[in-house]
């Protein structure tokens, strides 16, 4: 499914997991269960040896997945197997894409049902070649903006992104945190343009998810906490969390007009 179609039903809950953690075989079923629990978009992380944008939780997941045999070939098999009706989005580092070749990678995405890509170490300045490749295969290339992104640049990023704009809730790396910062609210408010805005990095509770939606976001992205529950084998608790967060997001969304992406 295209990302834009999903945002018709905004506000959304976007859920990140690390492909291959705990094993490649477990991933397709996990994706299905998360979709069933209410995830509107699945971000499927491709583990990298050097995930500089990630905190300890996701780093550890990546190491486990690599040790369990995850690689780019397996990733696309797993992604294809995870046949869900919601959009699947690739999340991973540029070198993994570069190593496979940009066109081949974008093509593999399309073939395995992935309709968007998030590449946390690829700012728009360096993204020209991948934008071209993505365009060929009708895959959205989603850019990130952060609280310290200045206004002019924010405008540029908003213009360049496709699918949605990924707002990083705070400076620093991925990982659960205890509250939503004023700077996050400010960032949401500062974004120009009309593309959907999803807020990630540090959201781990229904209340936080509701808060960012209430602040004007079109989606809340939850990641580290999911990875953490998977690591502990508590998939049912994860499903419950997703259900709760989804409910919170929907409730928070009631007070706003829906945005058509």
């Amino acid at each position, binding site marked *: 499914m295209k990302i834009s179609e999903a945002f018709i039903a905004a506000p959304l809950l976007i859920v990140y997991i690390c492909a291959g953690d705990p094993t490649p075989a477990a991933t397709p079923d996990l994706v299905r269960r998360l979709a069933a629990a209410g995830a509107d978009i699945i971000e499927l992380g491709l583990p*990298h*040896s*050097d*995930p*500089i*944008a*990630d*905190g*300890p939780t996701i*780093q550890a997941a990546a*190491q486990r997945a*690599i040790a369990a045999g995850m*690689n*780019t*070939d397996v990733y696309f098999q797993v992604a294809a197997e995870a046949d869900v009706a919601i959009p699947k989005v690739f999340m991973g*580092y*540029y*070198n*993994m*894409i*570069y*190593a*496979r070749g940009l066109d081949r990678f974008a093509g593999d995405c399309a073939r395995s049902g992935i309709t968007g890509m998030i590449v*946390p*170490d*690829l*700012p*728009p*300045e*360096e993204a020209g070649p991948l934008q071209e490749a993505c365009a060929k295969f009708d895959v959205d290339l989603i*850019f*990130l*903006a*952060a609280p*310290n*992104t*200045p206004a*002019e*640049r924010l*405008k*540029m*990023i908003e213009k*360049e992104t496709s699918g949605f704009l990924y707002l*990083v809730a*705070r*400076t*620093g*790396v991925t990982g659960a945190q205890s509250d939503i910062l004023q700077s996050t609210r400010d960032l949401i408010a500062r974004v120009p343009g009309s593309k959907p805005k999803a807020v990630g990095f540090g959201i781990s509770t229904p209340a936080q998810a509701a808060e960012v939606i209430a602040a004007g976001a079109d989606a809340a992205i939850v990641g580290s906490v999911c990875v953490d529950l998977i690591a502990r084998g508590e998939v049912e608790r994860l499903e419950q969390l997703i259900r709760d967060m989804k409910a919170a997001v929907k409730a928070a969304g009631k007070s706003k007009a829906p945005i058509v992406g």
Partner: protein
Amino acid sequence: MHSLISDTSAVKFGRYGGLFVPETLVPPLAELAKAYQRLMKCEDFKEELNLALKTFAGRPTPLYYARNLSQKLGRKVYLKREDLVHGGAHKLNNTLGQALVAKKMGKTRLIAETGAGQHGVATAIVGANLGFETQVYMGEVDIERQKMNVYRMQLMGAEVIPVRSGSRTLKDAINEAMRDWASSFDHTHYLLGTAAGAHPFPSMVRDFQSVIGKEARSQILQAEGRLPDSITACVGGGSNAMGIFAPFLEDEDVRLLAVEAGGRGLGKTDRIADHGASLGLGTDGVLHGALTKILQDPYGQILESYSVAAGLDYPGVGPELAFLAEKGRVLTKIADDKTAMRGFHALSKLEGIIPALESAHAVGYALQEPEALGDLAIINISGRGDKDLATVMDYENL
């Protein structure tokens, strides 16, 4: 496209270099690039830096005519004596420059990565001297094998933070420092230790290190009345090599020899390369913010590297060197552990100079292929070997 990086021409070296970093790091890198460019045009700043280089770091370092080594190699060999720089290596040229930039930018804290500890020590030195709070990320494995350098950093008031992620060595220490910086940039400067990483680091580190080459150029002209036929330098990330090469780039007749770590052989397994020769044996890829030559598996996972010299034990290399090597301006050479050990012993015995194991790679290469040096050669002795004594003892007891 509106970019924060104004001087985009400087960002890339051919297709290499760039700014492959999380969005959070783009503004601080841009701020750094701007401040740096402004300061390098500022006479007061340059004067302050030069005074520090002179009275604190001990510059200029000599260009020493190595009589005995020359005799052995059958040609004139001069040594550029970065082993005499305060702290024991060329690293301080860069940390002094960057710390002064950071000071002018109003930063109060320095973070750095370190492998063997040399860059960490050089950072601790400037941190103490210029009144920064200093924290140095260092892999747990490296902390274990470099206890004395850890202690040196602590003596100078720096905190050494053990890195437990990944291979728990230099590469992961860089990752950790970048993660720290992503949330601390407003009061913290990330003091990267080599001419690698995202823009503006490769250019900035090269510029701060090029004092080596500038001095060497005028010293050799004074001593010999002509430019050398070759300059040999070891390559980890590339800072001492770029530092001595840069002022000679236009002198097409000066052969620039970049010697990488051949480690215990040129093979590799799934996760680990037996060497550190990313320039010679690596492939294009992105590591630590730049497109460059790296050691990686077919999927793009970074390999752990290996060298007996901790400072050359890095799976990437600076992008400008990747560019210059591809253009053929810099020639890529490899010296393995054994060759480096030969260089280490030879220079100690012949000249009474115990080189760093890193620098010993350059000397070892010269012993192995003296003809490549031409009639008049400069070898960059990037550091002294005191830090390596225990390593050499261990190596030779094997």
